[in-house]
């Protein structure tokens, strides 16, 4: 049952020959095909591949929104049956609750039965994340007054507040401008340095994957299979300077080649489909 022990941290998540098909008018559509890999405690895994390839579907299975058609997704050895507060999810569209103020958003999870804490402790936690995420001045504001970057910081604060062991992020910075995006990446590294989580990041940015992750899973055009798993040779903490390192450049061109290859494969796939109907 357990992984071959090579020492190191324990395996927390295991994708075991996972495949997933959707029903479609033209018959079953295979989105994920025979994917197997492990995520260990404290790993930062980035999943990268052409858009629409099924990366998000992989994350949805780990989040508990979708079940595999065959194979198993195991969390600490048990098949996942639904979402849970130990797996915090950050969505590209933020999903901050517009009817709650910033501090009420952060407190939301702490008022649920699953992770209820006494009011005093709750205020303490809210204050801490308002502070860490630089949102203290906006505690009483509604999200309509926040910029995109601030909304994403709020979403991260809200996820962190319930103390998840995992952070699942689906292109979390994709909608942000370049400067904000880079700030958010650094903020994420900072907060992970303070409170370590096991992370799965879905991204289409090669640079983002290398800068943030400890391991990069390159997946193929649909159906998503594993093309290659690449270990990132940089430790933590990291800073912008690693962008200038020669290993960074080598890794970037290697992964970019893989991704471009799959992108072309996807274009070829897409062509006949777009003409039929």
């Amino acid at each position: 049952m357990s992984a071959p022990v090579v020492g190191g941290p324990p395996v927390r998540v295991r994708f075991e020959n996972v495949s997933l098909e959707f029903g479609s008018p033209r018959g079953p559509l295979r989105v994920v095909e025979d994917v197997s890999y492990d995520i260990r405690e404290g790993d930062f895994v980035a999943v990268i591949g052409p858009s629409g390839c099924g990366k998000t579907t992989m994350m949805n299975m780990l989040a508990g929104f979708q079940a595999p058609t065959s194979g198993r997704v195991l969390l600490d050895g048990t098949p996942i049956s639904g979402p849970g507060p130990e797996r915090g999810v950050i969505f590209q569209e933020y999903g901050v609750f517009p009817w709650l103020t910033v501090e009420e958003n952060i407190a939301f999870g702490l008022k649920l039965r699953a992770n209820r804490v006494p009011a005093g402790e709750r205020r303490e936690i809210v204050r801490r994340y308002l502070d860490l995420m630089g949102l203290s001045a906006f505690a009483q504001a509604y999200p309509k007054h926040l910029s995109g970057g601030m909304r994403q910081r709020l979403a991260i604060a809200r996820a962190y507040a319930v103390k998840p062991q995992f952070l699942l992020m689906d292109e979390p910075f994709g909608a942000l401008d370049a400067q904000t995006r880079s700030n958010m990446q650094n903020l994420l590294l900072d907060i992970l340095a303070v409170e370590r989580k096991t992370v799965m990041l879905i991204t289409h940015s090669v640079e983002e994957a290398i800068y943030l992750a400890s391991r990069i899973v390159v997946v193929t055009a649909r159906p998503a299979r594993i093309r290659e798993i690449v270990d990132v040779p940089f430790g933590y903490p990291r800073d912008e300077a690693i962008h200038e390192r020669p290993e960074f450049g080598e890794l970037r061109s290697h992964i970019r080649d893989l991704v471009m290859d799959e992108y072309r494969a996807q274009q070829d796939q897409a062509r006949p489909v777009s003409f039929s109907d």
Partner: protein
Amino acid sequence: MAGLLRRIGLVAAPWLAILAAWYAVRWTGLVNAALVPPPHLVAERFVDLLLTKGLLQDIAVSTRRVFIGVAVGVALAVPVGFLIGWFRTARALADPVINFFRALPPIALIPLVIVYFGVDEPAKLVILIYASFFAGVIVMSEGVAQTNPLFVRVARTLGASPGEVFGKVIVPLTVPHILTALRVALGVSWATLVASELVAAQRGLGAMIQNASTYFLLDVIYVGIICIGLVALFMDMALRRLSGRFLAWQDRSGA
């Protein structure tokens, strides 16, 4: 101070324009003057009705009918509209039926209402409830169907149980639609009021208008119409006030 005057001016301007147009229609002779009572005579008649004919009672009776019609109609429309909006199968089943009944003008149903409910108060209320219900169901179901499923997902990843998702996510997202349903139902109800008071009503603004039409009392008809418009306007303003307080979070320019 200048700002206040400006605002009063802006509010008053369209009404003054309507008054001017009213006098203009009379003076230009476009319409036979006997058929257009001038505003000052209508105002005189208004005071007369108020002091000697119990206009206030007519207003109260009609307002009460509209109020009950909207309250009952929307109270039924909220759960039904919610179910139709939330569950796709319910929507597929109910949509054609709802649209069938919604398209029927309440006035066409009056003979049937008389047969089944008689000619007393319940008959009038049934017509208003009918009108409010279908207006409310449409607004509710359309609104709820557009609920962003992302918020439900987020709540579940934070550990919310199905009951908590309902109480803490779906209910707050539904409140704006309930308020819109109330406003739409209120408008439809006032529009239906005259029809509902066709059913042997002794009092009420609709009854007053109909009795006046029997004796060709144009000024009374004008008073009745203006009263309906004003009461409907005040009720809508009150609801908008209420919405503004409940929905400060909504992303609307100027909010």
